[in-house]
Structure formats: C-alpha cells, structure tokens
C-alpha cells in the first residue's frame, strides 16, 4: 500500500511578500503586487505591469545569506530564499538527517541575468566577468545552486513544462515518495522576470496593459510575475517518526495533455476537465467535496474560456468558490503551481477564500463567476489547484485538510 504524502513545510517569495506570512497578509489585505518593473531593462518598463519582487538582486543575496558570493542568478536567489523558509517551517534543521530530494521547476533558468550578457558571452572579441554566467544558461543551474547551498543530496531534477512546471514537480515528488524511492522531497519552482519572457508573451499578444482581469468579460491577457515557492512533501511514516506537523495532504494529482494546439487550449477545456476530474477521483473526492478551486486563471482570452467551460462541465450549477490569485502575484510561470499550491494550503489552514481581484463583468461564454470577496471562516477541506501550460500541458492538484 503506497504511503500518503503530506505537506509539512512551505516557503515562498512573491511580489506580495518575502515569505508565507507576508503573502497571507497581502492576500487578506487584497493588496495586488502589480506595478511597473524597477529591475528590468525593457521598452515595456512603463507600459506593461508586472508583479516584481520588491528587491534588487544584491538585496536578495543579503536575504538569502549569500551576499558577496558569486554566481547566484536572481532565479537561484528567489528559490534559495523560498527553500530556506520551507526547511525552517518544516522544522528541518539538518536536511541530511533524512535523504532529501529536490524537484525544482524553471522555464528559462538564469535567463534574467544571462540575457544581459549573452552577446558578450557569444562574442570571441569580448572577455570579462560575464564568463561566470555561462553555466547559468540552462535550467539546472538554479536547482543545483539551491541544493548545494542547503545541502540536499537526494534525487535532484528540474522540470520544464512551461506554466505547469511546478505542479508537475509536486506530482513527481509525491510519486517518488509513493513508490518508496524517497521519504522526503521538496518540490516547487522558481522564476525571475526576463526581457525574454515579457517579449515572448507580448509577441503572442497575451499581455494586458492593465492589471489582469481573470474571468472578466473585458479581460485582455496576463501580467507576468516572479517568485519562488517550495513545499516539503513527506511520507506518512517519516512524519510520524519525526513528529512533524502536517499542514495538508496531497491526495490527488493529474497531468493530462490537450493534444489540441501548441499554445492554446481547446475551447471546451478538455485537458483542464480531465486533469481536475482525475485529480479529484484519485483523492477519492466527488465534485460536492470540493470547496475551492484556485484556478489557473491567467486572464488570457483562451485560458479563461477553456478553464471556465471545464469547471462548468465538472461542477455544473454547483461550481464551488473559485478565484485566480494571479492579480496578486502575476503569472509566475514555472513558480505558479508552487505558489498556488501554498495558497491552497493557506486556504485550508486559515479557512479562507481569496478574492479574484479586478473582476467586474461575467464572461458571455460562461454562467459562473469567480469569488470577488475575501471570505473568512469559510469551511475549506478540499482544494483543487490548476496549472496549465504551453504544449497542451494540464496539471491539477488536490490538496486536502488532514483529518487523521
């Protein structure tokens, strides 16, 4: 019998907070992290809102306790800060007490730093300090930097399935535990804002010049964000052995593919529907058991139609409370699944439903609307968290209250 997988620690940094408590405070205060960039060099710096972490990269090195040490990209530093909090929160003082795995997620690795020196790197006539960024061109660099800094020695991997990357990292970590290949795996993702991704999404005409409006009739695209989030997953036996506090259970998950289009979902939300349904069923839940769905809700024209249709197909008139928290954090791509999984844990721990900011008018294609108010003392036992990405990649996680 495979062991249950529990969440025993969480750590994060986003535009709305340097740690989990800061994030919770902003969510409760309904304080969006969207603003204009202070860190990026781009012609869109006063045009396209982003949810940027409010620290310079040297300040992040200070926070992470690696000031003056070379080779940490912004991506690695965001991740390291979130990782350190997750370990502290789980009460892990020596990570080598138990062989610990680390499944990270990233869409463009150290691009945030390499894009500024790339043409020097590629130019035989230039030499200089920038050579040290060569190793940060790929996605594994940030993962290994984080692992090496905190001393992780178990399974180590980086997943990149675009915007669903960290949801897939959580799923893979949970499966390694269930298969008995590890008893503790830390999973999530890290993402820094880059000129590369801003221009990428902008070239797809997917970015709104206004703060994003998920599930609104007038929505016109996403805003990018940055951040990192990690969740400590542990097997039931390890939790008992070390008497760890259980925050929530990861009882269900699913990854499905749309096989429809490289960057767009099917209008009926086939992939989203299948992912949510399978995750729910794996956790032994029926639609009526779900109190909250933290939707992918990017506010692109196509995502919200597809995801909304999938919700209606799965839940019908009894669709539970749902909201997109991307108006707070922006779309943090590979970190989004991790960040929103932590928000789901917070919803359960604090019995909260987070508001879907900036919503005004119902979409004409749907009869459902997102929750727009902060709901306190709301009985939340089971949450679905959705992350959908390019390549038709759909992931859904079922996060449940631990009731023994």
């Amino acid at each position, binding site marked *: 019998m495979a062991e249950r997988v529990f969440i025993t620690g969480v750590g994060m940094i986003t535009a709305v907070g340097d740690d989990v408590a800061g994030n919770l405070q902003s969510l409760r205060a309904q304080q969006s992290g969207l603003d204009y960039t202070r860190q990026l060099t781009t012609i869109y710096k006063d045009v396209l809102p982003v949810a940027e972490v409010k620290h310079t990269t040297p300040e992040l090195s200070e926070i992470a306790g690696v000031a003056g040490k070379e080779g940490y990209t912004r991506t690695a530093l965001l991740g390291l800060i979130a990782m350190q909090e997750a370990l502290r929160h789980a009460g892990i003082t020596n990570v080598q007490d138990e062989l610990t795995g680390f499944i990270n997620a990233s869409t463009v690795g150290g691009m945030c730093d390499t894009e500024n020196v790339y043409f020097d790197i590629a130019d035989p006539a230039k030499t200089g300090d920038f*050579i040290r960024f060569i190793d940060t061109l790929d996605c594994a660099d940030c993962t290994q930097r984080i692992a090496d800094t905190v001393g992780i020695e178990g399974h*180590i991997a980086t997943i990149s399935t*675009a915007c669903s990357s960290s949801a897939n990292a959580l799923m893979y970590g949970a499966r390694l535990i269930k298969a008995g290949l590890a008893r503790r795996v830390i999973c999530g993702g890290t993402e820094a804002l880059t000129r590369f991704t801003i221009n990428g999404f902008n070239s*797809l005409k997917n970015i709104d010049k206004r703060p994003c409006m998920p599930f609104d009739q007038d929505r016109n695209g996403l805003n990018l964000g940055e951040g990192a989030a990690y969740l400590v997953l542990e097997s039931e036996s390890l939790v008992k052995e070390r008497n760890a506090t259980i925050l929530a259970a990861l009882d269900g998950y699913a990854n499905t*593919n749309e096989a429809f289009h490289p960057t767009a979902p099917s209008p009926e939300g*086939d992939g989203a529907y299948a992912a949510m349904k399978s995750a729910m069923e794996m956790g032994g839940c029926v639609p009526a058991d779900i109190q909250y769905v933290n939707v992918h809700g990017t506010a692109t024209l196509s995502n919200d139609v597809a995801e909304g249709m999938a919700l209606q197909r799965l839940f019908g008139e009894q669709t539970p409370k749902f909201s997109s928290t991307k108006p707070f954090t922006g779309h943090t791509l590979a970190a989004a699944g991790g960040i929103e999984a932590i928000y789901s844990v917070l919803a359960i721990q604090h019995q909260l439903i987070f508001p879907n900011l900036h919503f005004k008018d119902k979409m004409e294609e749907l009869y459902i609307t997102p929750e727009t108010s902060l709901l306190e003392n709301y009985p939340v036992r089971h949450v679905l968290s959705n992350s959908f990405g390019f390549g038709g990649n759909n992931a859904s996680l079922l996060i449940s209250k631990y009731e023994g």
Partner: protein
Amino acid sequence: MKGKCYIQGMAAISPQHTFDGDLLSQPMAVTQGNMLSCVEPDYRAFIAPNSLRRMTRVLKMGLAASLKCLQDAAVAVPGAIVTGTGKGSLQDTERFIKEIRDFEERALNPTPFIQSTYNAVNGLIALQQKCTQYNNTFVHRGFSFEHALLDSMLLLSEGKPDVLAGAFDEITTEHFFIKGRIGHWKKETISSDTLYEHVSPGTISGEGAAFFLLTQEATAQSYAQLSGLQMLYKPSPEKLQHALGQFLTQHGVQPEDIDLVLSGANADSNHQHYYDVLNSYALGTQLPFKHLCGDYETAAAFALWLGASFLKQQQVPLQWFPMLKEQPRSLRNILIYNHFFGEQHSFMLLQKVDQTVSIKG
C-alpha cells in the same frame, strides 16, 4: 519499484547512421573536428511540409525519432510521453534573444519563443499522435534523460501499459563556442575516431535524439529489459564505488555477470578519474561510446540505444568499435555508466530478454 520495464521499440538520430537500415552494416561516421553533428534523415516521411517549414532542427529530430520509435513498436498512442533535454531548442532560444535585440523588442515573431519552450517537442508528439495522457519534460543536464526514464518506470509500475520516453539535444556553432569558454572542449582539434588517444582537458561535443517505447511486458520483439537505473549527484569517488557494488547486488548481478560496460569515458582529463571506478570490479569488456556521438547532456540515451541494439542482435558492430577485437563471449548483461562533467552520474542495467521465462503471450 514493482514491475518490469522492457524496450519494445526505439529509434535514434545521431552523428552515426542510426536512423535507417541495419546497424551492423553501417560504417562508422568520423568527424574531423570537435563538434559532432547528427546525420539527419529525410523528415518528409514523418512530418507534414507546412509543419516542417516552421520547425527548427532539434524539434524535427525529436519529433521524427519519436514517431519512428512508435512505428517500430507498432504503437500509435502511447500511455504517456516523457522526455529529457539539457538545452531544448538552442536555435530558437538564440534566435529569439537576437530578435529582441535586433528589432528592439518590437513586432517580434512569436514562433522562436514558442519553440524555445523546453516541452515543445513533447507537445508536438502529443498533438501529432493525439495523445492526451501524461506528458512531462525534464531539463536537468546529465539527469534529464535519466529522470525521464525513472518517471517512465514509475508510470509503468503505476499501471500504464506503455510509455514513450526519449531525449534530444542539439549543438550550434554559437553554443559550441560559448561552452568552449568554460573548458568543455579540447583545445586541440581531433578526429573523432582518435578521441581516446587525446586525454587532455575537455572533450568533444555532440548531439542526438533517441526515443524508446517502454512496456511492462516483453514480447518476441523486445530489444532488452531495463532492469535498473540509478542516479548519483556529485558523488565522491568512494561513494560512487560503493554505489556501483550496491547497484549490482540490488539487481542480483555479480560483477563478472556483466558482459559489457558501455562507458561514457570521453578523454576529458578533468573528469576521467570517475571512470576508474569500473576497474575496481571484475566487470566484462569496457567499451567507450562517445567517439560515436560526442558528449552532451543526454548522451546516455544514445548509449541505451546502442546497448539495446547489441542485446537484440546479439552482436556488437565491430566497425564502430575498433578497440574491440572480437565479439564478447556472451551478451546478456550490459552496464551503462555515464556522467556529465563530473556532476550527474548514472548507472543503467540492461538485460537480454529471456525468451523462455519472461515472455507472456
């Protein structure tokens, strides 16, 4: 992990003639220079012309290898698609970075951005085969393919009947130059067939795409059984040595049962010492393979393709391995040991499918 894992179909595009025809009759392709490039097939047999025009090199290599693999296994829609790539589509990444600069962030064509996404090949395979099942992509240097395999083995043990697992990486002139700046390649220019005579800092670069259709059950068509897989992150030589012994024991194999070792040894004097671990056990013949494919993050996928070919054909193509004077006495157990610049190490145990015992129908 319960359950078994058999290679039921496979295909490889590499710097050798591996895609079409009989492996044993192909001559060795030799590259003068330190950057090995793939012998690319005619993609039109696999990819529609309008798609082909938009796709860059590694996307074509990945998609064609995956489709040929499915054909080889006579499976249209696999139960899952899992891949590994160290670098994804370099051509698209390079192009988008340049276009951002050249066009000053205005009126950009989104295609290179979309195709630079590491899971673009996975998405294309799913789209072309209408595969709506599990789909994942690992991007962790010398563990990219290994984790794709581990994920696939987990999926089989969870009940998936079959999984398409693969790897793809390309090298470009620009990236070859960049990685050369941090000492990845030899300073002296060599001929690939003399690689092992040039033990010095750095190695030669390569590329390739290889896909495998993995199943829980063997048939008469099976190439080999993938019996074991282990990854070690930055191990000490002592830890590595201990782990190899444990790995063999765990899979019920004595060192002397290993008929052949496919070794990732690449004449890089900075990281060569790790391969000495193989000498501390009484293993069979050690055969290096990187003179054939060069070094890259997912080179172990090429080694797996080689090993599985040897086991099915029960011989080694001697023309590709001049260091081997005669066929191994037996070919039942093959060990693959590879590492990527000393950081990510992996062992794989590949076994001949026992025709009398394992095959069920």
